[in-house]
């Protein structure tokens, strides 16, 4: 009788631990599973929205203009009108998921910084933003349109600058980087 009770207790404990392990595995799988569907990617890549094809009447043409305006707004991200918390978060997201921002026109305001690669001698210019507590900093590299010479045509390090350009990704030495191309300083 005692042995039978012991066996039942052991079986119960085994069931509980197996259930726990399965639960942890489920959470692990959920955290890795990518939810971006192929259909969503296909919809994003389409430049002409389905709504625009339906708008033929005068009221519909107004709707088409509103739709085009919305598309323009979605292609432009103005970080200069956002709070420091959201600016930092948006730049952080740009670094984490750059594919969501490629081709978009970005406006950003922050501190100017420059980094010189000791091996290649190439200079990289960036606009640095900080979060609300000013303990975390994130920089967004930019490449000015036209011929500019450093340091004559660039601001001083830590000067506040406003940059706008088109977001792109590029590869260098096998690593992926992000920057604003054809940028202009204001």
């Amino acid at each position, binding site marked *: 009788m005692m042995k039978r009770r012991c066996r039942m207790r052991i079986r119960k404990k085994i069931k*509980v631990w197996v259930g*726990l392990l399965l*639960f*942890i595995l489920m*959470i*692990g799988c*959920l*955290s*890795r*599973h*990518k*939810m*971006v569907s192929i259909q969503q990617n296909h919809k994003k890549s389409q430049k002409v929205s389905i709504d625009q094809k339906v708008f033929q009447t005068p009221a519909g043409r107004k709707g088409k203009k509103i739709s085009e305006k919305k598309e323009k707004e979605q292609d432009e991200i103005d970080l200069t*009108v*956002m*709070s*420091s*918390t*959201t600016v*930092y*978060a*948006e730049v*952080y*997201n740009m670094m*984490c*998921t750059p594919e969501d921002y490629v081709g978009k026109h970005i406006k950003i305001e922050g501190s100017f910084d420059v980094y010189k690669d000791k091996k290649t001698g190439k200079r990289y210019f960036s606009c640095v933003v900080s*979060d*609300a*507590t000013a*303990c*975390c*900093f994130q920089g967004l590299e930019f490449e000015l349109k036209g011929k500019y010479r450093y340091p004559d045509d660039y601001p001083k390090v830590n000067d506040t600058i406003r940059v706008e350009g088109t977001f792109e990704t590029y590869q260098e030495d096998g690593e992926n980087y992000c920057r604003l191309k054809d940028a202009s300083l204001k």
Partner: protein
Amino acid sequence: MMEKLAFYLQHPFVQYALIVGVLIALCSSLLGVTLVLKRFSFIGDGLSHVAFGAMSVAAVLGLTDNTVLVLPVTIICAILLLCRGQNTQMKGDAAIAMLSVTALAFGYLCSNIFSTSANLSGDVCTTLFGSISILTLRKEEVWMCMVLSVVVVLFFILFYHKIFDVTFDENFARAVGTKVDAFHFVLSIIIAVIIVLAMKLVGSLLVSALIIFPALSSMRLFQSFKGVTICSAVISVICAFSGILISILAGTPVGATVVGVDVLVFGVCWCLGRLHGGE
């Protein structure tokens, strides 16, 4: 103001933050009532520090997804803390304190000695105070949070009466056939999961506020367990939602702003409770 709010709400990361923030606040408030009544208010702090230590070790080991290490370690520590029984040499508060400071010190030591980050103090600060973690969520993390929140809410609804029994009188619950040990086991796992999620909203140091303040605020206004639980959930959701919006508009750290709103609401509830003749 409304135009600015509408502008921010267009951004996916703000939508994700609001969804996850509200769900985390809801889950933590539901279990917060039980924890406060069972004198386990500081377990949130203890487990969040354990999670911080596990995160540091995961970073040192180079794990791309630290949830693989953080969640199991936090769950095991939660089980050790909550399933210990009453007749132990080391009482609950001492055990929580011991585990909490050990994990925090060990985690920070590991991060310093085997540093893999370019900005260690920034990463530590973000993890401890949750300044922007909630605003940098991926879609997968949002889905995971939604699923876990549904599980927690369902657990609370389905086992409401058992939770009530075990919270107020464990011996009575045991006498009527409730499997108190199994209940503690499952509760430990759920608390650990909620703590790990809640760290994204308010950071490691402020997690206790999410658990304690909504429960305490509602206890000023209601006397029944049901009333306190529902009021706690409502207060927590409103505070989290408004805290996130205020931090986005004003450019303040998210975690501290949410806790600030919680404290403000507690003050208001305390005053209302006093006006209506409460303690």
